[in-house]
């Protein structure tokens, strides 16, 4: 696994919409490097015969039947919205994303 440098952290912070100061970037680059190293140790311990784990419990096929359950009213749905208009969430215009 490649080491994590300060530029990687800045890139991730931008993707995750987290504002970080220069000091925080320096500190986080160091901390994440330790975490990546730790994961590397685990990867070394698990041989090629051990499949990657995405879930700690060996469960599969947890399904729900296709039956309609509860819904919110528009008022309930919008109750926590910073801004709303005519039953819809109102958000700033977004020009260069998506």
């Amino acid at each position: 696994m490649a080491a994590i440098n300060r530029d990687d952290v800045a890139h991730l912070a931008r993707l995750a919409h987290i504002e970080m100061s220069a000091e925080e970037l320096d500190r986080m680059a160091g901390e994440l490097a330790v975490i990546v190293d730790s994961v590397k140790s685990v990867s070394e311990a698990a041989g090629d015969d051990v499949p990657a784990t995405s879930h700690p419990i060996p469960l599969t096929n947890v399904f729900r039947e296709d039956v309609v359950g509860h819904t919110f009213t528009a008022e309930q749905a919008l109750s926590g919205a910073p801004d709303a208009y005519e039953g819809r969430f109102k958000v700033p215009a977004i020009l260069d994303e998506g």
Partner: protein
Amino acid sequence: MTDATLSFEEAMEKYDPVLGFEVHVELNTKTKMFSSAPNVFGDEPNTNVNEVDLGMPGVLPVVNRTAIESSIKIGLALNCKIAETCRFARKNYFYPDTPKNFQTSQYDEPIAYDGYLDIELSDGTVFRVEIERAHMEEDAGKLTHMGGAAGRIQGADYSLVDYNRSGVPLVEIVTKPIEGAGSRAPELAKAYVAAVREIVKNLGVSDAKMERGNVRCDANVSLRPHGRERFGIRSETKNVNSLRAVEHAVRYEIQRHAAVLDSGEPVIQETRHWHEDTRSTTSGRPKSDADDYRYFPEPDLVPIVASREWVEELRATLPEPPAARRKRLQADWGYSDLEFRDVVNAGVMDEIEETIAAGATATVARKWWMGEIVGRAKNADVDPGQLGVAPATIVELNKMVEDGKINNKMATEVLDGVLAGEGTPAEIVEKRGLAVVSDDGPLLEAIDAALAAQPGVVDKIRGGKIQAIGAIVGGVMKATRGQADAGRVRELILERLGVEG
């Protein structure tokens, strides 16, 4: 700014197009992919949502079993392999159409992969399109951009969000690069999307209404000089949402790419927005590091295991494939190869089937759809099925003609009235005063006048030249401004003259 384009013919002379499609199919399950909120189109905004669809903290998604089964059916109908095990992943991005800041999708483990679809072109040529994968995901909310230029994102002041569509189950079908279509690329594009739409509709897993966004197509186009193996740089035209638009968008992008390449510039890899009004695309945004979605396995969902028994059970429920269905329908309806191909190419096979189911004969249904409606749809620049003629309307119109209430000429006038929103055929006949004159009194007056006006013709008829009657019938029709039933007029004339027809 308008982009330069070459003529399609010149573009084809110089370059070889390579296509690729991502078709999103909305499933018609009763509930959403991961929540029990209803999957219903057109309701009041933000009423078909619950805490899962709104991405509230701490909620847990649960997979809809029917959505999985529908996805497997789509995979099977596309001749795909069905993954023994697969899982969901988070696709991380910030955009107000997804309140969770990630879309739950499938990444490296699609439920179906390695399939193909044989596409029949208008002249009967069969072209095989390879399917890379079909994976499950959830739809996003609907944004409406307000202010600025009408409804476009550019210059908008703010956007309004309705999350009713958020979490609606989607299957995204991705093709492998399609090579070798040449100048038939636009036609193939349309035929491919039509075939996918037909398949999911036939399976009953989607309402498949393109005008409602049930089937949406992103079209990838790139060009390369003839003889070169390496692909050119592609553009991806988003949300091309009618069959005609798919054909036009691919054609336009080929012409635009050709002009860019001719100018010596590289094509920019970017998304393009399709504009139906100008039949052109405009630049969306270039691919950038914002496309780093940092996929990772969705920790709130466990893997899906599709046992072979389950897959076979589902395979056994698959309906007759559309190609087989076409063969059967042609035989049932007694259409010639040419007639049937015309019907298919005009895109009215389903409409004719529905019209026959509503009570019309195969001949009557074809006469109306091919003879009247297809032409009107072309003039109105919409798909025939979207023109607004219900099968029941055709049955009603035809019955009026058969009952002698109106004649064929009036029937087409009534059809125009229906399309203009004037009401039902019966109401329009009434309002426009179109009923055939069936009271014999006024007819007989007109007949007597016509007979008196053409004594020479009368002599001929009496003398046995029955075919001369056309002149008298014509006179009567003229006098009644076309409102008489010509068959009845003929009968009455013969009766009047005491001649056997």
